[in-house]
């Protein structure tokens, strides 16, 4: 069985998904994800030339709402769920990079 996904690939997607893996986990996930992707090889190999993708099972379009204000949530209730709060805002540790 050719490697469908490498250890490096798994490390990369874990980083993209902000998950940290131990070396053992990296090994285990690499082989488990490889098995699933192996099973999906039949799909990857199918000839689908000219077949449009289905993103959604419903044929709906143009679902719109009116531009009318609706009451939102009470700030105290919202902030009560927050792990850390300061001055009516959500507090987070320092941010190292600018938004992309």
């Amino acid at each position, binding site marked *: 069985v050719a490697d469908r996904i490498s250890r490096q690939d798994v490390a990369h997607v874990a980083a993209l998904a902000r998950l940290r893996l131990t070396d053992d986990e990296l090994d285990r996930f690499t082989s488990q994800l490889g098995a699933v992707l192996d099973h999906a090889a039949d799909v990857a190999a199918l000839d689908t030339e000219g077949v449009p*993708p289905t993103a959604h*099972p419903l044929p709906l379009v143009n679902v719109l709402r009116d531009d009318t204000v609706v009451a939102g949530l009470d700030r105290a209730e919202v902030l009560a769920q*927050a792990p850390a709060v300061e001055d009516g805002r959500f507090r987070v540790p320092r941010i190292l990079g600018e938004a992309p």
Partner: protein
Amino acid sequence: MAATAEEIAEAVRSGARTAADVVDEHLSRIAEREGELHAFNLVLGDEARAAAARVDESVAAGRDPGPLAGVPVAVKDNLCTRGIPTTCSSRILEHWVPPYDATVVARLLGAGAVIVGKTNLDEFAMGSSTENSAFGPTRNPHDPMRVPGGSSGGSAAAVAAGFAPLALGSDTGGSIRQPAALCGVVGAKPTYGMVSRYGLIAFASSLDQVGPFAANVADTALLLEVIAGHDPADSTSIPGPSPRSGDLRGAVDEGVDGLRIGVVTELADGADADVSARLDEAVGALEAAGAKVDEASVPAAVHGLSAYYLLAPAEASSNLARYDGVRYGLRVDGPDVSEMNHLTRTAGFGNEVKRRIMLGTYALSAGYYDAYYGQAQRVRTLIIRDFDAAYASHDLLLSPTAPTTAFPLGAKTADPLTMYLSDVCTIPSNLAGHPAVSVPYGTGDDGLPVGVQVMAPALGEHAMFRAAGALERNRR
């Protein structure tokens, strides 16, 4: 035999029985066996008694509390309940209290139902055995050494154990129908868009659908009538009026005379022999009741599992990004925000959730999108086309719900792919957005329940419930 939801509602509405009495009866049943089964993440004893008292007050005041007056309902713990913790059986949401009700929850309450608890599930509905719950597995009431199926295993077990005559679940790849089959109850996945997803914590948005569990087909139809209908808060909700009250419930007793039903060979083939035998008997029963049954083919359905395990994780990887420790839920602090995100998510998610997030991230990532995600979307088109072709000559399709009966706890946890294969018969309906229902039909060699799946084209619930009712009446 416990009273049906329909009987309870009728008794409560007419004043023959109090909702308080009904709730007490169910709470005492829960007290007896919940310790053994762990169907619930949270039992809402006080809240249920208070809700029942309000129903009784309504009746006393001459008001009609609604079609589910005083009926206890168990609600899957991925449906938001205002002021009541909603955890998705995940550490990351363990202490989260939603500030709003899911639309289906609001509809339940509006119909006079009494919510008795939040049921256990595979974390974020990812799994087929309810063993992926961060709070421990649910056990099958028919054999506590076995799984109830999943991901709505808590809801299925709650109904099977008589904890509540009705339950709500969610079905992304079979998460209502497969546990219904394994627990010997009825479970339906409606047409995509028939029931609002607002307040259902997303797993895979284009596949998720809320649906009913009940001990019998009529109650299942009744509950679906209550929760179905357009919701302006869900852009993927089908517009237009709700199914007419009584339409689905009425279908249950209509019979199957003249219905053309096809057994999907591609889905029937892989089942265990005892499961196949029950399916054959179900075919015989339907024919005896007047249906015309033959074989049908949905060739692309064999690719359903693979397509699903690319599409659903892809959507999930994005849906679950918001659990970052900033606004709600778990936070594990770190020196900077990225580190905090990493630590929080690493501690907050279980292995199956991590696996699917990584699989989905990979399927969407640069260089792989076309080969995996894009290709899976095209296969989805092929499956829909094949279903359309099969429905050109059939009103309904039939298959086993699951290839096996309930398996022992731990039997499939080491090998995710084996676990995924439990959903092979149920996944195609999710990909197509079609309705399907699992109806108990006898038992396997091990004495455990077997389910038969009735599938219908989009909005074909009426015919689907006709066949489901006939199967239930003609069960040997």
